[in-house]
C-alpha cells in the first residue's frame, strides 16, 4: 500500500496545472467565479479545448481517443479541473453514451458516434425517467415499434437534463411488452431534430431551467440506431447506472467548496469578529470535511479496483449515497453561513448586471444551490434505490 504521489505524478500535476492556467478562457473563468450561469457556448468552448489537447475522453480506451492514464493521474486531473473552478464536464456524451457505444455498439456505430463525442461536436442528453417511471425505471412505457428498417417511437421522457442544448438523446424504449418488464427494453439513439420530438422546459424550485420533458410523437428512428440487441437495454442501463454513480459524487469539486467556505468564515463579519469565531458552525464544517475525506478514499479504492480490471459494481452505490449526502450538507452550511443574506432572490438578469449584489458577493447562488441540490439524492437512482441495490447485490438480502 502506498497512498502518496510519485515524482512523475507530481510532474504530471504541474503539467495539468500549467495547461489549465494557459488555456482556461478568462471570460468563462470570470463567470464561474462570480456564479453567473454559463451558456451552452461556454461549456462547448471549454470542453473543445480539452478535446484538442486529447484530455477530454480520459476514461475511454486509447484506441478511441482515451488517455491511458493511471487512476492516480485521472484523480489528479479531476482535482486540478475542480481546483481551477472550470465548468463541470457534461457527462451524457463522454461518460455515459460513449462508454455504452464502445462497449455494446457495432464497429459502424463506433465510427459514426464516438469521434463527435470525443471532439465535442455533438451534445447528448439522457432519456431514461418517465412520468410514471422514476425509481422503478424498468416500468418505462415509451414504445418503439419496428416497422421495416425503422422504429416508430411514441411516449415521453422527463427530468431530461439540458435537453434544450442537445443534438441527440439516448433512450431506453420498450420494444416488447409481453414478458418480464426488464427484458423488453432496448437502447436507442435518437436525433433530436427528427420530426415529432418536442422539448418542454421544467422550472425547478431554485428558479432555473435545467431539466425538461421530452415528447415523442410518431418519431421515425432508423433501426441502425439501436445499440446492442433488441431487449438488451436493461443490461446496458445497469452498466451505465454503475458508471454514473461513480462520477456523481463530485468529490474534487466538494474539496474546493469546503476550502472556499473556510475562507469565507475568515472574512464574513460576525459581531466584532468573523464567522470563524462561531464554534458550532466550525464544528459542522470540520465534520463535513471528515466525511469528505472518507468519501474520497472510498472513491479511490473503487477506482483502483477498476483499474486492476474490475467493474464499478454495486459498491458504487456507496459513492453515490456518500457523495450526495455531503453535497447536500455542504450546500446547507453555505446557507447557514449567510444568515439572512441567504434569502434575497436574484434572477439570471440580476446576476448578469453590474449593480452591486445584495449581501456578500458569493451570496446570490447559495440558496438556489441548496434548493437545486435536493435533486442529488433523487436523481441517478434515488438514494432509496441505491440502498436497495446495496442490500440486494452486496449484502445478498
Amino acid at each position, binding site marked *: 500500500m502506498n497512498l502518496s504521489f510519485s515524482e512523475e505524478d507530481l510532474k504530471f500535476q504541474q503539467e495539468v496545472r500549467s495547461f489549465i492556467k494557459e488555456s482556461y478562457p478568462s471570460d468563462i473563468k470570470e463567470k464561474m467565479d462570480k456564479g453567473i450561469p454559463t451558456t451552452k457556448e461556454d461549456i462547448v468552448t471549454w470542453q473543445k479545448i480539452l478535446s484538442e489537447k486529447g484530455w477530454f475522453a480520459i476514461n475511454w480506451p486509447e484506441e478511441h481517443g482515451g488517455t491511458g492514464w493511471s487512476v492516480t493521474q485521472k484523480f489528479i486531473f479531476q482535482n486540478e479541473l475542480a481546483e481551477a473552478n472550470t465548468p463541470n464536464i457534461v457527462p451524457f456524451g463522454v461518460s455515459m453514451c460513449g462508454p455504452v457505444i464502445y462497449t455494446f455498439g457495432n464497429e459502424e456505430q463506433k465510427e459514426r458516434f464516438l469521434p463527435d463525442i470525443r471532439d465535442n461536436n455533438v451534445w447528448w442528453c439522457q432519456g431514461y*425517467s418517465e412520468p*410514471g*417511471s*422514476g*425509481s*422503478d425505471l424498468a*416500468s418505462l412505457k415509451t414504445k418503439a415499434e419496428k416497422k421495416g428498417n425503422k422504429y416508430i417511437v411514441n411516449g415521453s421522457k*422527463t*427530468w431530461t437534463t439540458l435537453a434544450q442544448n442537445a443534438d441527440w438523446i439516448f433512450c431506453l424504449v420498450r420494444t416488447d411488452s409481453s414478458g418480464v418488464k426488464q427484458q423488453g427494453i432496448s437502447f436507442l439513439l435518437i436525433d433530436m431534430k427528427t420530426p415529432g420530438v418536442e422539448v418542454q422546459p*421544467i*422550472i*425547478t*424550485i431554485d*428558479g432555473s431551467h435545467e*431539466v425538461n420533458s421530452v415528447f415523442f410523437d410518431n418519431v421515425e428512428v432508423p433501426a441502425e440506431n439501436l445499440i446492442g440487441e433488441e431487449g438488451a437495454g436493461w443490461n446496458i442501463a445497469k452498466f451505465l447506472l454503475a458508471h454514473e454513480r461513480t462520477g456523481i459524487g463530485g468529490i474534487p469539486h466538494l474539496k474546493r467548496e469546503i476550502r472556499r467556505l473556510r475562507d469565507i468564515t475568515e472574512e464574513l*463579519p*460576525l*459581531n*466584532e469578529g468573523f464567522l470563524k469565531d*462561531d464554534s*458550532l*458552525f466550525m464544528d459542522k464544517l470540520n465534520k463535513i470535511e471528515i466525511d469528505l475525506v472518507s468519501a474520497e478514499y472510498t472513491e479511490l479504492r473503487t477506482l483502483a479496483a477498476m483499474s486492476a480490471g474490475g467493474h464499478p459494481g454495486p459498491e458504487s452505490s456507496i459513492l453515490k449515497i456518500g457523495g450526495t449526502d455531503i453535497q*447536500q450538507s455542504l450546500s*446547507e452550511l453555505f*446557507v*447557514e453561513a449567510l*444568515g*439572512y*443574506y*441567504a*434569502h*434575497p*432572490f*436574484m434572477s439570471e438578469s440580476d446576476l448578469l448586471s453590474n449593480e452591486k449584489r*445584495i*449581501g456578500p458577493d458569493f451570496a446570490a447562488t447559495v*440558496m*438556489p444551490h*441548496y*434548493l*437545486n441540490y*435536493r*435533486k442529488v*439524492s*433523487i*436523481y441517478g437512482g*434515488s*438514494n*432509496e434505490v441505491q*440502498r436497495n441495490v446495496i442490500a440486494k447485490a452486496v449484502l445478498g438480502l
Partner: protein
Amino acid sequence: MDFLLSDEQKQLQDLIQQFIQKDYPFDVREKLVKSEDGFSKEFWKTFSTFGLLAMPFPEEDGGYNGGPVDIMVILEAFGTGLIVEPYIPNIVLSGNLISRLGTQDQKDTILPNLFSGDMHLAFAFAEPQSRFDLNDVTTSAEKDGDNFKLNGYKSVVMNGPAADKLIISARTSGNQMDKSGISLFVVDRSVSGVSLRDYSNVDGSKASELTLENVVLSKDAILGEEGNAFSSIEYVVNLATLAISAEAIGIMQKMNELTLEYTKTREQFGQALSQFQALQHRMVDTFMVHEQTKSLLLMAATKLNDQAEDAVKSISALKYQVGNAAKLIGEESIQLHGGMGVTEEMSIGHYFKRLTTIRTIFGNSDYHLKKYSSL
C-alpha cells in the same frame, strides 16, 4: 391544565381556514407572489375586517386584547395556506413596538391606519454583521441640538418595499454590542437620506436593504426612551419568534399531509409508495416531530402569555426545535415527492422554501441552542 382553544380562537381559526379554501388556493398565492407588491393589499384589508390586524393590541389602543395565543392561532393557520401577506413585520413587530412604546400622538397617527390596513410598517433591526444579535447595532443616531442624525445600514428589512414608515434601531450611546444605548426611531420612507433597495426573497416575501445617510430627525421621531429600547426590541422579537414558529408548524402539518397524500397515490414497483416500510418509518418520524414541536409551541405561547420567568428560555427551546424539525420535514417531504418535489409547479416546493427561510429568521437552531444554554 387545558390545551383547548377558546371558542373565539376556534372561530378565528375556522375563519382563516375558510378564507384559504375559498380565496387563497395555491395558484392565487403564486400570482400574488409574482405581482408588483408581492402580496394582495385587498386581502390585507380583508384581514382587517376579520379583526386580525388589531387582534394582539390592548383595547385602549383600539385593539381586541389578544395575546400570544391568538397570534399563534393566526400564524399557524396562515402557515397551512402559505399566506404571504406581511403580518409578522407589520403587526407582531412594528405594531407592538408602537403600542408598547409610542406616545399618544404616535399611536394616534399610526395604529388606526395600521389596523384598517391602510398603512404598512417595517422594523429594521438587522445589520450585515449582527446576524441574530439584536444588541449588535452600529447604525448611529447622533444628537444634533434638538434633532438626531442617523447614519448606517440595515439589512434584509422584511416588508420594506410596502412600508410607509420604518422603525429603525440605532445607537445613541455605548459600544457595538452594548444592550444599553439603543434607541428606536420612526421614519417616513420618503425622508431625505433614507434609501431603500427593494427585492424579493426566495420564499416569496419582500424585503429591502436600507441605507441611512445623514438622516435628520426631530426628537418627536424617537420611539420610547432614548437608549432604553433593547428590552422592547427583545420582547417583540420573542413574540415574532413565537409567531414564525407557529407559521412553521402550520407549514409542517401541511407538508406532512401533502406527502402522505402523494405517497398514497404515486405507484412504483407495482404498489403505492406508502406501502414501502422504509418510507412509512420516515413518515412516522416526520409526523412525530411535528407533534412534538407543536407541544413546545403551545408551551411557549402560554409561558409568554403568562409572562412566566422562563418565557424567553422557552422561546429559544421552541425555535431551536423548529429549526431541526423544519430541516427534517422540509427535506424529507421533497425527497418523498421525488423529482416532482423540486418542480416550481407543485406547492410542496414552495412550502419547503418558506420553511427553509424560517429556519434562519430570528435565529437558527445553533443560535437558540447557545442562547438557551446561556439562560
